């Protein structure tokens, strides 16, 4: 769990990491320690909340920085690497699946094995598809603008 937490912290901008990583890990360890005596569901809830919080936080930190009026070279240094975008999408899917698994287990009882239909409701799939589509369109527009020789962030 702590390893995954450290891994997700890498999604944050480097300045943020330098400032808060050590402190966030210390607080997370303390919270995890306090949570260790609780039952399965509270611990699962804690894990999902922490992972989702990190993903949302990393996304917010990255997008907030990108909207500022920085010079082009500084802006490019803050952009997500492509592997990180793929990683974030995969982690988001994993978190959504974990939430659905917990929901299905809570409804069907702890012994039941959740089905794929229950794990991935059509609404979540539709939202994910829509967001991925919008992301791809945005990326294509940026590529097109760049090929025209314009640099929108400069």
């Amino acid at each position, binding site marked *: 769990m702590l390893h995954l937490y450290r891994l997700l912290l890498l999604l944050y901008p480097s300045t943020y990491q330098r400032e808060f990583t050590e*402190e966030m890990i210390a607080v997370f360890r303390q919270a995890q320690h306090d949570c260790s005596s609780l039952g399965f569901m509270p611990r699962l809830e804690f894990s999902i909340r922490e992972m989702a919080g990190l993903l949302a936080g990393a996304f917010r930190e990255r997008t907030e920085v990108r909207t500022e009026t920085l010079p082009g070279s500084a802006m490019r240094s803050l952009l997500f690497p492509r592997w990180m975008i793929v990683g974030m999408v995969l982690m988001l899917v994993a978190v959504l699946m974990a939430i659905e698994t917990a929901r299905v287990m809570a409804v069907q009882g702890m012994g039941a094995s959740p089905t794929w239909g229950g794990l991935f409701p059509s609404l979540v799939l539709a939202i994910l598809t829509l967001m991925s589509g919008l992301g791809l369109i945005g990326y294509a527009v940026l590529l097109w603008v760049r090929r025209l020789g314009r640099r929108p962030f400069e």
Partner: protein
Amino acid sequence: MVLLSLAEEPRHGYSIIKDVEQMSSGRVRLSTGTLYGALQRLLDRGWIEPIEEEESSRGRRAYRLTSTGRRNLKLEFTRMKDLTRLAELRISRGRA
């Protein structure tokens, strides 16, 4: 709620999480990602400041309100009080 948590005394990150949970009777449980996102924005605005303790590492850094933060918290509190007063007035008028 983070500002309110720091209004009384300086607190460390985990202490803020527990205090917010207590203040909201368990309804608000901050994750570390959410907390430190909020702390960073408050630091950027100059509403809070870290207290560097000589003997402690960064893992135990505490934060406290600045005078600007306290002023803004009071403004927010006044705004909420006005809103509450207005809500009470309208609800009581609705009953009459």
